[in-house]
């Protein structure tokens, strides 16, 4: 089933859909698997597996630490692909690779796409790869049936949003505010206006991320977009009290376990 059909089917079950995030190898691959088990129980629809990078300049403090510690523990790219294959084998949610462009550049575009495909991913998010530099990678993705997640941001002009919309596939990631991952976003009229601007330039499902952390945020996203993207808040919960806190976090979002 292609991703748009998947999203349509899932939307009949709930609103908004949910996309969550783990940093591969942090605190460990075993812990990642436990986090994903809980995410699966709550019916998460998409999961980003972040491949750790030494220079995560678009991430906030918690993810910076997670990237760094994972690399310090010796996490390698090959292990992230192996882990991804195990995850896609085991769970029903769709999996995306998230990371920085150098990971793809260093192994070569073809190898990157081939390995993602083999590991069962449906797409990838490379926030430091602008569309002008992504033509070859996007063409290879299309052939392989993978989609690159394009980011739209509140500082973009309408002209730029139009360009972004023209190359987007699968879904669009709307960045709710300026800044890095992890600090709170006030889901205000300003965000709603921005999402309307995004909507003018794409018909694809809209995911909203950066600072999404509670039920009110989810309700806001349900009313204004399609997918709530939760990153830091879930890792924060895991760090505070592992399974118990992560479970409580999802319950607090008003979700029920299957």
């Amino acid at each position, binding site marked *: 089933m292609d991703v748009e059909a998947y999203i349509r089917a899932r939307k009949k079950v709930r609103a908004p859909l949910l996309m969550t995030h783990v940093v591969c190898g942090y605190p460990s691959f075993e812990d990642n698997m436990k986090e994903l088990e809980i995410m699966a129980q709550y019916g998460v629809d998409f999961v980003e597996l972040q491949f750790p990078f030494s*220079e995560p300049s*678009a991430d906030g403090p918690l993810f910076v630490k997670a990237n*760094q510690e994972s690399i310090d523990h010796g996490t390698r790219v090959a292990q992230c692909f192996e882990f991804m294959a195990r995850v896609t084998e085991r769970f029903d949610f769709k999996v995306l690779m998230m990371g920085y462009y150098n990971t793809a*550049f260093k192994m070569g575009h073809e190898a990157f796409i081939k390995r993602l495909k083999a590991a069962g991913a449906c797409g990838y998010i490379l*926030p430091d790869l602008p569309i002008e*530099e992504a033509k070859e990678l996007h063409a290879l993705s299309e052939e392989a049936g993978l989609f690159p997640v394009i980011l739209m941001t509140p500082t*973009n002009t309408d002209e730029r949003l139009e360009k972004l919309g023209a190359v987007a596939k699968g879904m669009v990631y709307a960045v709710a505010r300026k800044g890095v991952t992890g600090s709170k976003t006030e889901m205000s009229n300003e965000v709603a206006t921005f999402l309307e601007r995004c909507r003018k330039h794409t018909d694809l499902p809209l995911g909203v991320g950066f600072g999404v952390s509670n039920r009110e945020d989810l309700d806001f996203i349900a009313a204004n977009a399609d997918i709530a993207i939760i990153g830091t808040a879930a890792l924060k919960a895991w760090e505070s009290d592992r399974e118990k806190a992560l479970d409580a976090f999802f319950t607090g979002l008003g979700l029920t376990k299957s």
Partner: protein
Amino acid sequence: MDLFDFEEGREGYYGQYGGTFLPEILTTTIEEIKHCFRECKNDPGFWAEYEQLLQEYSGRPTPVTHLPNLSRKLGGAQIYVKREDLNHTGSHKINNVIGQGLLTRRLGKTRVIAETGAGQHGFATATMAAKFGFECKIYMGEVDVKRQRPNVFWMENLGAEVVAVQDGQKTLKDAINECLRDWVTNMANTHYVLGTACGPHPFPEMVSYFQSIIGREAKRQIHELAGRAPDRVYACVGGGSNSIGIFQGFMDEDNIDLVGCEAGGMGPGLGRHASRLAYHDASVGVAQGYKTYFLQNDDGNMLETQSIAAGLDYIGINPILAHLWEHKKVRFEAATNDEVREALKLVMATEGLIPALESTHAFVTAIAEAPSMSKDEIILVNMSGRGDKDIFTVADALEDDHWKAFIKNKAGEYGR
């Protein structure tokens, strides 16, 4: 050769190096800077104001000095030095900072941020911010804060906030990441004063443009002093701003050997140095907004770097220099920490000059090569900064007992 006459659709590229690789949130900000810089470059009044300001504020033009004692001792080429150490704040960094200060004003922004390694760029930025009336925040790796306290002291007293960056290896590259994080949040009122000719386009071009003042002056001065162009020009290369600055004065002449001197640290081997081109431990990658040679592993994660000079301790290199190196227009050599200590002692003792540890890397290579050149050949070394700031590091390296006693005594006074 006009390095900045880009091919259609290849703006910001030097061969295969350079480009702009930034999060989408910065696209509008970068476009704004590109537009503003283009205006400045095409406005003759802008360069005139820039030059005037550096003359009044920083004492430019800095002189070129002949080193007769050192030349005689080595018995080969005549050595001349371009004295960027005589700038206000003690290094070439002020050139770029004054240029970007004028740009910040034109952009209508009121706050500047900067990364710094040795502290020279942070120091220069803090000075500029005080002069222009900008709010200023400097990001500096915790390791560098510890080894360059005198510069931190001045930055803070000039009114800048200095943040000791705790991530990664806690040096220059981590300070750059922290600046990018600040910038994606505060770009509405903030200009990022990048200190070296690295990072996303248009920074390599912009920093090279401002630093070209070194080469423009030096070309004229060496002709006046020595009657002709130099045979070889040496400059240290961390990010690669002082080197591209002086090289631009001599690039149009084919027979001038341009030599970039990198941090050889403890010698070749992964993680032991910060040499991207002279040793063969680096490969092409994309990080911190641009494509160039990086010291990285097979996964594309960056390696640890090592150098006695905080200002050379960087994973990537000016993409323009990577391109020129590939086309054999610039030669690269590395100087080890031990060689730097010896060269510094020699230059101090024979000429009474105190180059910064960074600049001493250029002296190492010049000193090694001068003896095999003839007496009528001419060497020009870019002394990018002065060594006063390194007093703690140098005193340690020289195991100076009088200094140790002084510090103990001072510590005792503070302890009371």
